[in-house]
């Protein structure tokens, strides 16, 4: 896999805080817009096509499978 999924942040907690902070006071629509722009900015920074494809696949798999709990437990 070309995508780095092992910890790679210089400052993980600080990034997370900044991410949430960036959405402060935004409507849901504005937050969607921010996320879309963030994806595009970061995708260009990564550049490598294989890594981007891995990221898209990992994110989609997480939406479709790993994140879903069995219905009974909801």
């Amino acid at each position, binding site marked *: 896999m070309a995508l780095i999924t092992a910890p790679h942040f210089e400052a993980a907690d600080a990034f997370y805080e900044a991410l949430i902070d960036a959405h402060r006071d935004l409507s849901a629509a504005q937050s*969607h*817009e921010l996320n*879309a*722009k963030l*994806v*595009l*900015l970061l995708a*260009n920074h990564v550049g490598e096509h294989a890594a981007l494809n891995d990221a898209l696949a990992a994110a989609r798999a997480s939406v479709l499978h790993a994140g879903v709990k069995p219905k009974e437990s909801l």
Partner: protein
Amino acid sequence: MDFQQIVFPYRRSADHDARAPLRHPVVVVGAGPVGLSLAIDLALQQVPVVLLDNDDRLSTGSRAICFAKRTLEIFDRLGLGQRVVDKGVSWSTGRVYLRDAPIFSFDLQPETTHERPAFINIQQYYVEGFLAKRAMELPLIELRWKHAVVGVTQEADAVTLQVQTPDGTFALQAEHVIACDGARSSVRQLIGQEAKGRTFKDRFLIADVKMAADFPAERWFWFDPPFHPGQSVLLHKQPDGVWRIDFQLGWDADPEAEKQPERILPRVRALLAHSAMKDAPFELEWASVYSFSCERMERFRHGRVLFAGDAAHRVSPFGARGANSGVQDAENLAWKLAAVMQRRAPDALLDSYCAERELAADENIGHSTRATDFITPKSDVSRLFRDATLQLARDHPFARSLVNSGRLSTASTLHGSPLSTPDRDAFGGALGPGAPALDAPLRRDGRDGWLLRELGTGAFTALLFAGADDESDAHALQQAASGVAPLQVLRVAHDGDGRSAGLRTVVDSSGLIAQRYDGQPGTVVLLRPDQHVCARWRRVSGDAAHAALRRALALH
């Protein structure tokens, strides 16, 4: 001369009164840009052609409008390139606007060292008219107007066509039928085939407007302009003071109502009001409302019937890949059909037409689909990313590479072609096997000229970069081609290199031929009759050239 008023005469043909159907080598169906180009190319290679068209007029309105460099180069070879370029409006710059602000521009041909521009704009009826005139100069072409194909039957050795004319219906036979009869191809329907793909849920108004406007000869594309909010608009300059404007309307627009002048005029006025030409007078020449499909036939060959142009594949117009890819189909097929008809190549060579042009169609459909998805986002999230891309593009150069208002037609590289000989030697540059030849300036006999003009019709060309053994290399190449294919050896020399007795020599005055083809002393680049590279060597041997030529003719 008003090309829109030309009516071609119907003539009763000899086939009509024949007791048994007459047999012709090739019948081409459809006298549009593709069918006419194919007929001319075949006639120039000594193949007689009957060209049938169900109408007696040229196309109505600007239609295809953008003719690409590669198409112009093909027209040069067919003998009408200059006429088309002289009439057309040359351009290479595109500008993209978001609302009323320019976000970026692109230059499709920053180099000036090519004879032809990236594009010209010209009404399709002019191109068809020039092609028809050229076809009428060639005695091997019989152009028959008001001849509609209404029946197709395939036998082992021929195809029988039922043809309807004002004098009634008659039958004729052909060894090969080439259907160039457009997106609603009757030949395709008559053999029970269809083109499959996607239709986009959007409608576009296309208007030809005559006005004394002073916009530059550039392609202007607006996303969400203030004069047509929420949609896109495309503006192109054409000859005769005519401007082509494409307004995106959305899927819910009523195509009949939108075609009416009372709906169209306010849209044009709104565009002008946003320019320096507020209140400029204009008149509407032609308008149409379209929805777009990207689709293709699964196979372009069905026995002795082959398909080219829109009959075989269809794209949305963003990228100008319809007529331009169709003319490339015609060029790909013409030399192969000539070689097969003249018994110089096996029938399998025609299968390579399908292999190569089906892939090219996929590439064109891919580009056209991506552009249409960007211009017409089909989901909320697709629109979210589209709008995000456009907004980022104002400030960040990277996002401009994602903005897709159409990726404009270039000649297809024939990747993985069965006719190409893979490289054994080390080469740099993009012109590997399958690539279309690139033009470059040169001098021959003391006169300035262009490389592509030196390549003939129907023959292979070996570019031989001048080295130590030019004469023996050229001899080996000619021996290799002997009895296989017509071959022209073109020696590419530097300014200081001497003449070489008996060798056709051009001088690479700017060094660009060597640069573009990665030519070193002794390098040989073998070009097919359709000007695609099929093999190249640092040092050529007669055996290698012989094998490459046979391979390029499917003579395995």
